[in-house]
C-alpha cells in the first residue's frame, strides 16, 4: 500500500499524544470487557439452564420452606420424570470471604435431575454411604486446593448454628460449558436429623425433571394448582425464568452495565474525536497542499479515517489483551462474590468491533471536514 508511509508518518507525528490516545482506548476496552463479562456471568444462569427442568419455590418467597411431602405429589403429576429437593445451608468455611454456595441435596434423585453435573460413580457411591459426606464443584475444590479425603470444616449460623467437619468424597464437573462448578453438596439425611423442629422434613426448593420441555407450561400450572389454597402454595417456573429472577435479586445488572458502558463509549468517542479533530486542525495547510497537488477529498478522508482506525485497532487489541490477562486474576479475587468470569471469543470479537466503531465514528467528523475543506481558504490560513 503506497500510502502506508504517509499514514504512519502522520500517526507518529506526536508520539506522546499517540501513546495517550491508545492508552485511553486500552483502558476503556478493559473496562468495557470487564463489564460485559460480569453481565454475561449474571445472565449465564439463564443461558445454561435446563430446558426440561422446572424450579418450584414457595409462593411466599425463596426463603420460605415447603414440606418434603410435596415431592411425591409433584412426582405423581403426568409429565414429571424425576424430582429432587434442595436446602440452602449458608455455612462459612474458615472465613466469611471464602464464600461458595452450599446446598443440602437429595442423593436419591440428584443425579437423575441434574444430569449435567457429573460425579464419578465410585466417588458418588462413597458419598451416598457417608452421612458426613460432601461433594465439591471442581472450581471450589481447586480454589481451596482440596482433594478427595480432606475434611472440610463448615460453620453455620442457620438452623441453630454449630460447626461440622465434612468428608470430601467427590468432585463434580459440569458437562455444559460455563456451568456452575462452585457448589458444595451435603447429605439431606444428616441435615434433617440435626435440623431444628421447624426445619425438619422440609425442602427449600424442588427441581423437577420433565419428560419433555414441551410440558413445561402445563406441568408448572398443574403443580401450582395442586397446592393452591394449601398452607404451602407454590410458584413453579422454568429453570431459566428462575435463574433470571435470581439474577434480578442483585438489582438491574443489565441497566447498570449498559449505563456504565454507554458512559465509557461516549467518553472514549469524545477523547478520540477531540484528538483526531486537533490532529486535523494542526495540519490543515498540509492537507490543503495534498489536495492542491491532486489528492482527492476522498483520499484525504481515507488518510484521517485510516489513522483513527489504526489507533482504535491497536488500542483495542492492547485493551483486550490486558483484559484477557486481568479478568482471570480479577475472577479469582472475586470468587464467591460473582459468578465465574469467562471471557469468551464472542466478547473479544464484540470488544474489537466496539473499538473499531469508535475509531470510525471519531475519525469521520474531522475527516469529512478535511474532505470538504476548500484548498484556497486553507492555504490562506497557512
Amino acid at each position: 500500500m503506497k500510502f502506508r508511509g504517509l499514514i504512519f508518518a502522520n500517526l507518529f507525528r506526536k508520539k506522546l499524544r499517540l501513546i495517550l490516545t491508545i492508552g485511553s482506548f486500552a483502558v476503556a476496552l478493559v473496562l468495557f470487557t470487564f463489564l460485559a463479562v460480569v453481565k454475561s456471568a449474571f445472565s449465564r444462569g439463564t443461558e445454561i439452564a435446563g430446558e426440561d427442568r422446572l424450579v418450584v419455590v414457595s409462593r411466599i418467597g425463596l426463603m420460605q420452606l415447603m414440606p418434603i411431602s410435596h415431592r411425591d405429589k409433584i412426582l405423581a403429576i403426568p409429565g414429571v420424570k424425576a424430582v429432587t429437593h434442595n436446602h440452602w445451608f449458608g455455612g462459612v468455611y474458615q472465613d466469611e470471604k471464602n464464600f461458595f454456595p452450599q446446598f443440602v441435596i437429595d442423593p436419591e434423585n440428584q443425579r437423575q435431575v441434574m444430569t449435567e453435573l457429573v460425579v464419578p460413580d465410585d466417588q458418588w457411591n462413597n458419598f451416598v454411604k457417608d452421612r458426613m459426606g460432601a461433594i465439591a464443584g471442581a472450581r471450589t475444590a481447586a480454589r481451596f486446593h482440596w482433594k478427595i479425603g480432606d475434611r472440610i470444616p463448615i460453620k453455620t449460623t442457620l438452623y441453630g448454628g454449630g460447626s461440622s467437619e465434612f468428608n470430601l468424597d467427590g468432585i463434580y464437573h459440569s458437562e455444559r460449558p460455563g456451568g456452575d462448578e462452585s457448589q458444595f453438596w451435603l447429605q439431606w439425611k444428616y441435615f434433617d436429623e440435626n435440623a431444628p423442629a421447624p426445619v425438619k422434613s422440609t425442602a427449600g426448593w424442588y427441581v423437577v425433571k420433565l419428560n419433555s420441555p414441551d410440558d413445561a407450561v402445563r406441568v408448572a400450572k398443574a403443580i401450582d394448582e395442586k397446592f393452591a389454597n394449601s398452607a404451602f402454595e407454590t410458584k413453579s417456573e422454568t429453570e431459566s425464568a428462575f435463574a433470571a429472577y435470581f439474577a434480578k435479586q442483585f438489582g438491574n445488572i443489565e441497566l447498570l452495565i449498559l449505563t456504565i458502558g454507554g458512559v465509557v463509549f461516549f467518553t472514549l468517542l469524545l477523547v478520540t474525536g477531540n484528538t483526531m479533530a486537533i490532529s486535523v486542525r494542526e495540519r490543515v495547510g498540509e492537507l490543503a497542499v495534498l489536495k492542491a497537488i491532486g489528492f482527492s477529498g476522498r483520499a484525504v478522508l481515507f488518510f484521517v479515517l485510516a489513522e483513527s482506525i489504526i489507533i482504535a485497532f491497536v488500542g483495542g487489541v492492547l485493551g483486550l489483551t490486558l483484559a484477557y490477562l486481568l479478568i482471570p486474576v480479577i475472577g479469582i479475587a472475586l470468587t464467591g462474590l460473582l459468578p465465574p468470569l469467562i471471557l469468551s471469543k464472542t466478547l473479544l470479537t464484540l470488544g474489537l468491533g466496539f473499538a473499531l466503531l469508535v475509531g470510525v465514528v471519531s475519525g469521520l467528523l474531522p475527516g469529512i471536514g478535511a474532505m470538504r475543506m476548500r484548498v484556497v481558504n486553507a492555504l490562506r490560513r497557512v
Partner: protein
Amino acid sequence: MIRVDGTGKSNSLIQVRGLDKTYRRGGEEIQVLQRLNLDVDKGDFVGFMGPSGSGKTTLLNLLGGLDVPTHGSITVAGDEITHMSGNKLTQWRARHVGFIFQMYNLIPVLTAFQNVELPLLLTKLSKSERRKHVETALGVVGLAERMNHYPRQLSGGQEQRVAIARAIVADPTFLLCDEPTGDLDRKSADEIMELIHRLVKEYGKTVLMVTHDPVVAKRADLTLHLEKGLLVESGELGVTVGGVA
C-alpha cells in the same frame, strides 16, 4: 508569446478569456479580477506583480484550478477547466500543475524524498520508477544527497528547492509559483530564481509566478501588473502586449 489582448493564437498553451472573479463578503460584492485575457505559450516565463489585494494570488488559484471564476474561461493544453467537476479538476491538477508556495508547505514528518514522491503516489508508477523520478528531480534542484533529510534539517532555501522538486517530479504542463522567494534572504532568493530560470531555459518549463520583488520579477520573460483586478501595464523584450480587452 505572451499576450493580454485576447488575440493570441488558438494553440496557446494557456488561454484565458474574459475572466471575472467576484467575492461576496458581508453582502458586499468585491470584484477581484475583471475581464482578464491572457495567452501563454509553452516555455514562457510570466511574472505577475501588483499591490496586495490586486488579485495576483486569485489569478494563480484560478489558473491552477483551485478556484472557479465568476465568468470567463481558462483553457490549458486544449482542456477547458472552468466547467470541470471537482473530481475532474483534482485529477487535472495532478497531471498538469506544479505548485510552488511561499512557505514551501512541505510535510514535516516526511523526508525530502517522501515529500517529492507525493505527486507520484497518484500515478501508476512502480516503486522503483518512482524512486528514479524522485532522484532525478532532487538531482535537478541539487539536493540528491539530502533526500533522507527532514524539512527541519534543511535551510529555507533548501526546503524551497525540495518544494520545486515536488512541483516538477510528475513533469506537469506548467508551474505556478506564489511568491517563491518571499520567505528567503537575498542570496537564497537568487539561487531559487536561478533554479526556476534554469527550469524554463534548459527544461522548457512554462512558469507563471507571482512576486512583490522587482528584482525577482526581472527574471521573468515578461512582468504583467495587476491593479484592482485589471492587467494595466506590461513590458519586456520580445513579447507583444496589448491593453485590456
